[in-house]
C-alpha cells in the first residue's frame, strides 16, 4: 500500500505538499484492507487490475480512513488549475462519508503507482457521479455494516455526523471502527486503465440525499494554491534526479522533413555535450542547461533536413478543406436530436438564411512549454516525472513505444502549466523524447521544449467550417434548421518523439469505430431549441491537414482543446440563431427563449438578460453604421449546454470601423450547473474561461505556410493582456432541485465568440462569419 511518505528520490525543495497538505498529526497511515464476497464478479474487474499497482476493487485504493479518523483520497485525474481534486472532490467525499471537509487531509492525484482509476483531467465532476463519489458511497455502506456489527445496532438505526456513528445510545468513531478491522466489500470497476477514459466504478451504491449536504455548496479554499503561492510546491519543472542530464530536441525543419544529416558538434565549445540521433529524432544532451541550449542551437544550425511543402498554407486553408479534403471516407454522423422533414420546410421558407462559418486552428499554448524528466533504468523499468493530463494513458503510450508492458512504466504527476486538453490523451510532447534520450545515454534526462518547439511541434485545436440552412415561417419562428459541420480529426495522441524515431505508436487518425482517434466527426453540441420542428445536424470528418502527405505522417496534428468539438459546432449554431432573430426582426435573446422549451435554458437566458442590462430590441440597432473612426456599441448573446450545465453569455462591445478593432467592454455570464459545489472555485474558473473565450474570438489563429507553423513566440501568437479584459460579471444559479452537479471548468471559453460576432452585427449591421475577428478581417468586412 502506498503511503504519503513516498516520494521520488532526491527531488530537491519542499515536501510534496499537494500529497500531504495538512499534517496528519503523526498518525500511522494504516488503511483497512477489505476482503470477502464481491459485488461484481467476472472478467471486467480482473482485466482492469492487470495494469494497476493499486487494486481498484479495494476501497482502500480509493479512500483510506486512518485510526485518527483522518481520510486520504486518491484520483487518477491530475489537477490542471481547476482545483477540483482539492476542493470539489474533498467536499463530495466529505458529504458522502459524513465527515468534515478538514478530515480529508491528503489527496493523491495522478501518479500511476498511487492512484486506481486513470482517465484525464477533464469532466472532473463526472456528470454528478465521479468515481470518487461512488467509492465514498460504497465505503460509507461498508462502514455502516461494520458499525452495526460492532455496536450491535441494526444498520437502519445508525446515523453518522462528523465521522462518529451513533445509534441506540451507542457511538464509535470511524477511526476506532477501522482499527485492525477487515471490511467485506469489493468495488466493481470496468474499463481500460490506460485508455483515455480509464476505469469507471460500476454499480449503484446508495448516495447521500442532496438535502443532507452540508459541505457541498461552500467556498472551501483550494489547498494547492497556498503551497504554490508560498513557493512550497514541487512542480514538474523542479524535479532533479541524481546524475540527470539536460536535453533539447532539434525538431525537423518542416512538418514533413526527414533527416539528411545531424549537425556536427563543436567539441571545443561544448566538451560535455552529446548528440543523440534516432531516426528523425535529434537530441542534444549535456550536464548543464545553458550548455545544452547553446549546443542545441549550434547543432540545429548545421543539421540538414529534406524540404517539404505539403500544406495548403493559411491563404488556401478553407479552399483546401472545401474542395480537396476527403469528406467521404468517414461516415456522416447524424445528431440524435434530428427530427422532422427539413427539405420541404426549407423550400417553403418565408425567409431563409444560408451561410458558412469558419473557425481557425488555435494553439493550446500553455504558458510554460512542455517538459519531462525520464529515467530508464538498466532493468528496463521507466520512471517519468512530468505534468500530464492523463498519466495512465501516457504510461500505455510509453510502454507501446518501448515494446514493453505498462507495468514497467511509472508516471509521477506534478503540477505544471495548464494544457487545456492538449495532454488529456496522454502526452504533451516531451515525455517520450525524454524516455528515448534517457535510454540512449543511460542516465536520467530532462527534456525542456523551448517556446518555439511548443508553438510549432505541439498539436492544435482543429480548424472547422459549418454550413447552415435555416427557414423562418411567416410568424418569424424557425421552421427548419440544417447544420453541416466539417472538421478534421481532433484527437491525435501519437507521441511525437516516437513518431520521429519511427517507433510504435497508436495509428494516426483514421476511419474506425472506436471513438476518439477516429476521423468521424460526432455531434458534440447538445441541441437546446426543442421548439424547432424540423432539424438535421450532420458531422463530417476527415484526416488531419497534411497527415497523409507528410513523409513523417505528421502535418498539422490536432488535439482536443477546452470544449472540444462543441466550440466548433456551437459558434456557428449560436451566431446563426442571432442572425435568424435579426431576419425575423425580433430580439435575439427573446428569440432563443421562444425556441427553447427547457426551463433551465430559459433560466440562464433570463438571468444573463437581467444581469447585463440587456435592452430588448431587434438587431442591428437603429443607428448601426459600418464606417467612421468613432467606436460603435452593440451587444450579442449565446447559449450552451455542456456536461449537465447551462450557460448563457452577453457581450457588450465597442468597434471602431476605421481600424476594425473590437473591444469587449462588458462580459456577463450566467451558469446553472444544478448544485454549485464550490461557488468561489466555480466563479474563478468561469472568469478564466471568459478571458480565454475573448482571446479565441478576437486574437487566436494558427498561421502556417506550406511547410509548417510560422509562429514561434507570444508576439506572433498573441493572447490577451490585463488591459484587454472587460468588466466580467459571473452569475451563479444554484439549482439544487436538479439533484446533481454539472461541470464548470470549460464552456465559458466557447461562449464569447458567437456573442461578440452578434454584437458586431448589432453595432454595424454586418455579419462576420469567421474566427478570429482580427482587426484586419473586421476592417475588410466593413469595407465590403
Amino acid at each position, binding site marked *: 500500500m502506498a503511503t504519503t511518505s513516498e516520494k521520488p528520490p532526491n527531488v530537491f525543495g519542499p515536501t510534496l505538499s499537494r500529497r500531504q497538505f495538512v499534517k496528519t498529526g503523526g498518525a500511522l497511515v494504516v488503511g483497512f484492507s477489505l476482503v470477502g464476497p464481491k459485488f461484481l464478479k467476472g472478467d471486467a474487474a480482473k482485466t482492469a487490475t492487470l495494469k494497476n499497482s493499486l487494486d481498484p476493487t479495494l476501497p482502500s485504493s480509493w479512500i483510506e480512513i486512518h485510526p485518527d479518523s483522518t481520510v486520504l483520497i486518491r484520483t487518477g485525474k491530475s489537477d490542471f488549475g481547476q482545483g477540483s481534486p482539492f476542493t470539489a472532490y474533498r467536499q463530495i467525499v466529505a458529504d458522502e462519508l459524513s465527515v468534515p471537509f478538514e478530515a480529508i487531509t491528503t489527496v493523491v492525484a495522478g501518479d500511476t503507482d498511487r492512484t486506481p482509476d486513470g482517465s484525464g483531467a477533464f469532466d472532473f465532476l463526472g456528470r454528478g457521479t465521479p468515481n470518487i463519489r461512488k467509492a465514498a458511497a460504497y465505503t460509507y455502506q461498508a462502514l455502516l455494516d461494520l458499525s452495526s456489527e460492532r455496536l450491535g445496532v441494526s444498520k437502519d438505526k445508525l446515523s453518522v455526523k462528523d465521522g462518529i456513528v451513533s445509534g441506540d445510545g451507542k457511538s464509535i468513531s470511524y477511526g476506532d471502527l477501522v482499527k485492525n478491522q477487515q471490511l467485506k466489500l469489493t468495488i466493481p470497476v470496468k474499463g481500460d486503465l490506460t485508455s483515455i477514459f480509464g476505469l469507471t466504478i460500476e454499480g449503484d451504491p446508495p448516495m447521500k440525499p442532496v438535502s443532507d449536504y452540508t459541505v457541498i455548496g461552500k467556498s472551501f479554499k483550494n489547498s494547492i494554491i497556498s503551497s*504554490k503561492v508560498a513557493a512550497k510546491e514541487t*512542480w514538474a519543472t523542479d524535479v532533479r534526479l541524481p546524475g540527470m542530464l539536460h536535453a533539447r530536441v532539434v525538431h525537423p525543419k518542416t512538418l514533413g522533413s526527414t533527416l539528411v544529416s545531424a549537425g556536427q558538434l563543436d567539441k571545443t565549445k561544448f566538451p560535455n555535450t552529446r548528440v543523440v540521433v534516432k531516426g528523425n529524432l535529434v537530441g542534444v544532451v549535456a550536464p548543464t*542547461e545553458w550548455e545544452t541550449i547553446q549546443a542545441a542551437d549550434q547543432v540545429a544550425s548545421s543539421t540538414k533536413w529534406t524540404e517539404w511543402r505539403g500544406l495548403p498554407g493559411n491563404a488556401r486553408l478553407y479552399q483546401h478543406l472545401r474542395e480537396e479534403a476527403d469528406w467521404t471516407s468517414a461516415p456522416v454522423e447524424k445528431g440524435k436530436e434530428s427530427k422532422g422533414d427539413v427539405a420541404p420546410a426549407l423550400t417553403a421558407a418565408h425567409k431563409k438564411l444560408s451561410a458558412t462559418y469558419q473557425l481557425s486552428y488555435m494553439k493550446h499554448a500553455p504558458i510554460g512549454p512542455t517538459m519531462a524528466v525520464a529515467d530508464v533504468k538498466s532493468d528496463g523499468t521507466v520512471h517519468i516525472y512530468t505534468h500530464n493530463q492523463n498519466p495512465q494513458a501516457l504510461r500505455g503510450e510509453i510502454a507501446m513505444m518501448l515494446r514493453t508492458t505498462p507495468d514497467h512504466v511509472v508516471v509521477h504527476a506534478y503540477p505544471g502549466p495548464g494544457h487545456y486538453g492538449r495532454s488529456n490523451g496522454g502526452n504533451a510532447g516531451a515525455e517520450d523524447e525524454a524516455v528515448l534520450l534517457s535510454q540512449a545515454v543511460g542516465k536520467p534526462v530532462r527534456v*525542456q521544449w523551448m517556446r518555439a518547439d511548443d508553438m510549432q511541434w505541439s498539436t492544435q485545436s482543429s480548424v472547422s467550417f459549418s454550413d447552415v440552412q435555416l427557414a423562418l415561417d411567416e410568424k418569424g419562428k424557425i421552421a427548419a434548421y440544417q447544420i453541416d459541420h466539417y472538421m478534421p480529426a481532433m484527437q491525435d495522441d501519437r507521441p511525437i518523439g516516437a513518431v520521429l524515431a519511427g517507433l510504435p505508436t497508436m495509428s494516426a487518425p483514421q476511419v474506425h469505430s472506436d471513438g476518439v482517434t477516429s476521423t468521424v466527426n460526432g455531434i458534440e453540441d447538445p441541441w437546446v431549441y426543442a421548439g424547432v420542428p424540423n432539424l438535421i445536424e450532420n458531422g463530417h470528418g476527415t484526416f488531419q491537414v497534411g497527415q497523409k502527405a507528410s513523409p513523417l505522417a505528421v502535418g498539422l496534428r490536432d488535439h482536443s482543446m477546452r470544449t472540444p468539438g462543441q466550440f466548433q459546432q456551437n459558434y456557428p449554431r449560436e451566431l446563426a440563431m442571432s442572425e435568424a432573430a435579426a431576419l425575423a426582426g425580433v430580439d435575439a435573446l427573446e428569440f432563443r427563449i421562444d425556441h427553447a422549451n427547457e426551463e433551465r435554458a430559459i433560466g440562464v437566458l433570463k438571468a444573463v438578460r437581467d444581469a447585463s442590462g440587456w435592452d430588448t430590441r431587434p438587431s442591428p440597432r437603429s443607428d448601426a453604421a459600418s464606417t467612421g473612426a468613432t467606436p460603435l456599441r452593440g451587444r450579442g448573446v449565446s447559449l450552451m449546454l455542456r456536461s449537465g450545465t447551462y450557460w448563457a453569455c452577453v457581450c457588450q462591445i465597442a468597434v471602431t470601423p476605421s481600424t476594425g478593432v473590437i473591444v469587449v467592454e462588458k462580459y456577463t455570464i450566467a451558469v446553472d450547473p444544478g448544485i454549485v459545489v464550490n461557488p468561489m472555485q466555480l466563479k*474563478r474558473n468561469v472568469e478564466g474561461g471568459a478571458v480565454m473565450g475573448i482571446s479565441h474570438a478576437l486574437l487566436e489563429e494558427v498561421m502556417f505556410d506550406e511547410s509548417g507553423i510560422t509562429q514561434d513566440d507570444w508576439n506572433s501568437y498573441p493572447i490577451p493582456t490585463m488591459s484587454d479584459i472587460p468588466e466580467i460579471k459571473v452569475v451563479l444559479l444554484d439549482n439544487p432541485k436538479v439533484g446533481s452537479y454539472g461541470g464548470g471548468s470549460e464552456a465559458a471559453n466557447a461562449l464569447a465568440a458567437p456573442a461578440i460576432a452578434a454584437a458586431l452585427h448589432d453595432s454595424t449591421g454586418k455579419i462576420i462569419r469567421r474566427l478570429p475577428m482580427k482587426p484586419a478581417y473586421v476592417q475588410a468586412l466593413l469595407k465590403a
Partner: protein
Amino acid sequence: MVTLTVNGVRHEVQAPDDTPLLYVLRNDLQLIGPQFGCGLAQCGACAVLIDGKERRSCVIPIVTVADQEIITLEGLPARWAKQKGLSAEEAKSTLHPVQQAWIEEQTPQCGFCQNGMMIKATELLESNPHPTLAQIKEAFTTSGLSPNLCRCGTYVAIIDAVQHAATIMAKGR
C-alpha cells in the same frame, strides 16, 4: 565565477558569465519560484526583483547583476518582515501580503505565471500603495519588458488580489 546576492544570501556561482540568471536560480540555487515560460522576456513567468524592480531572469546574464540585490518569490516574506520590523519568530509564519492576498482571493488557476504576477504586484505596491484599477492594468501591461501574461485568464482575480494586498499592507500586517 560570479557572486550573486539572492534573498539576502551571497552565493559563489560556478557558471559561465553569460548564463541567464533563471537557470542559475533554478538549477544551482534551488530557487524554484521563477519559472521558464518563454526564455524571451515576453511573458513574465521568470520575474524577480532586482534592486526593487521587476526584471526577467530568463534574459539577464548573471555577470550583469553580480552587485545587485536579487529577490525571488521565496524572498518575499523576509522582505516584508524586514520592511515591517517583524521579529524572527513572527517572520517565520508570515507570508508577504501579496502572497496572503493571492491565497485569500484564490487567484491562481494553474499558477505557473503567478510568480511573475506576485513579483509585479510587489513592485507596484511598494511604489504605489493604493493603485487605481487603471494603474494596476498599466503595471501588468506596459510597465515591464512585456505584459505579464496569464494563459488561464486570471486577470480579474489578480486585480482583486492586488487590491486586497493593498488593504493588508495599509493595515501593516
